[in-house]
């Protein structure tokens, strides 16, 4: 296993408890691949969680959980930051989390925004029947994408990604939703990522998907499979047969 500096003297074990549709799990996969780390992948059935998962994350009982040398880590953005700190990037590549404290605070702010605003609205879209609640969720999702598009426009001089020349924390936070795009647009019967409305975000989507680590990580959740999954999820959430 490739490791850097003093870490290479100590045997490292990495195990990821994951579920293939989860955008949070995909974030951790992207980070692990960017750092070229070897890890064991364990698929969890979220309707029948393993004892190991329940004991590794007793508080939330959720995936992803990264177990590093038998110590569990939970919450995707916390895990990604941990990976960045323990396995620093080589000088040819910027770190996932910026080095400058201010830039770091900004990156964390936008990563939190993905969770607190965009994901929250997407979750409402998934759980709401057609009608007012769903329309509001759609509107909120479109609003978030407009904000991201503006942010990319303002950052465009620094590079194609939210992280500048290289993929950073915000890119990792947002990229997995690209697997879910088709599902969101089908459930909501709307165009979510539109070239006319969000030209910068569309370009970003193409650029980020060309990165081999992102492509590999997102390959576990092809669009058609995610759509099937969301249909089942929705029928359970809405109490249908």
């Amino acid at each position, binding site marked *: 296993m490739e490791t850097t500096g003093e870490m290479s003297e100590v045997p490292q074990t990495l195990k990821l408890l994951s579920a293939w549709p989860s955008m949070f799990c995909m974030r951790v996969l992207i980070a692990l691949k960017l750092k070229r780390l070897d890890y064991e992948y364990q698929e969890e059935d979220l309707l029948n969680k393993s004892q190991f998962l329940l004991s590794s994350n007793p508080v939330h009982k959720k995936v992803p959980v990264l177990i590093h040398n038998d110590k569990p*880590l939970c919450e995707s953005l916390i895990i990604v930051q941990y990976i960045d700190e*323990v396995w620093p990037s080589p000088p040819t590549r910027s770190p996932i989390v910026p080095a400058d404290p201010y830039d*770091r605070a900004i990156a*964390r*702010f936008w990563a939190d925004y993905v969770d607190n605003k965009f994901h929250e609205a997407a979750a409402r879209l998934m759980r709401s029947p057609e009608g007012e609640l769903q329309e509001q969720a759609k509107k909120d999702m479109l609003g978030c994408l407009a904000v991201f598009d503006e942010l990319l426009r303002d950052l465009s001089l620094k590079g194609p990604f939210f992280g500048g020349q290289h993929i950073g924390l915000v890119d990792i936070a947002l990229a997995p939703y690209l697997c879910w795009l088709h599902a969101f647009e089908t459930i909501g019967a709307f165009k979510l990522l539109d070239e006319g409305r969000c030209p910068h975000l569309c370009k970003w989507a193409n650029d980020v998907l060309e990165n081999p680590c992102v492509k590999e990580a997102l390959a576990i959740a092809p669009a058609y499979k995610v759509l099937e999954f969301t249909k089942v999820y929705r029928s359970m959430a809405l109490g249908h047969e």
Partner: protein
Amino acid sequence: DGVKVLSTWLSIFGLRVLIALKHKGVEYEYQEENLLSSKSQLLLESNPVHKKVPVLIHNGKPICESLLIVQYIDEAWPSSEKPPHLPNDPYDRAVARFWADYVDKKVFLSTSSPVQLVSRERRPRKISSKLCNLQALDGALHDVSKGSPYFGGEDIRLVDVALASFL
């Protein structure tokens, strides 16, 4: 090194920022925002996304979200006299961030909607969920602190700052 804090006296989150600044011995200017009447132009420009307090403005650059501000304070004023709010070890740091996040999601969110607003039937479940969340925190304090008075061991750390403002 101009430091300005935009907050209101009511804000639990603002209190976190003030605790962290005082702990580090950083001098700052405090601007009270009146959130009921009109927010200041400075606030609206500094936090256009959420338009909320607290905001820390350091040399003209705004930082928002209380836990992010506390981490920023740690990183922008690393000082050898006071231990940092976040531990130095990456794993301990991840654990501290986890519990600080837990405080925001579970303790704050569950305490922000008063029990009285919940119907009589649902009250027992709501109260027991608040208790469960607090029990989990209590368990964590026991495990993490190993007998010391704070989450951070002998000194005040991130999770202590996150929680203290609730008292």
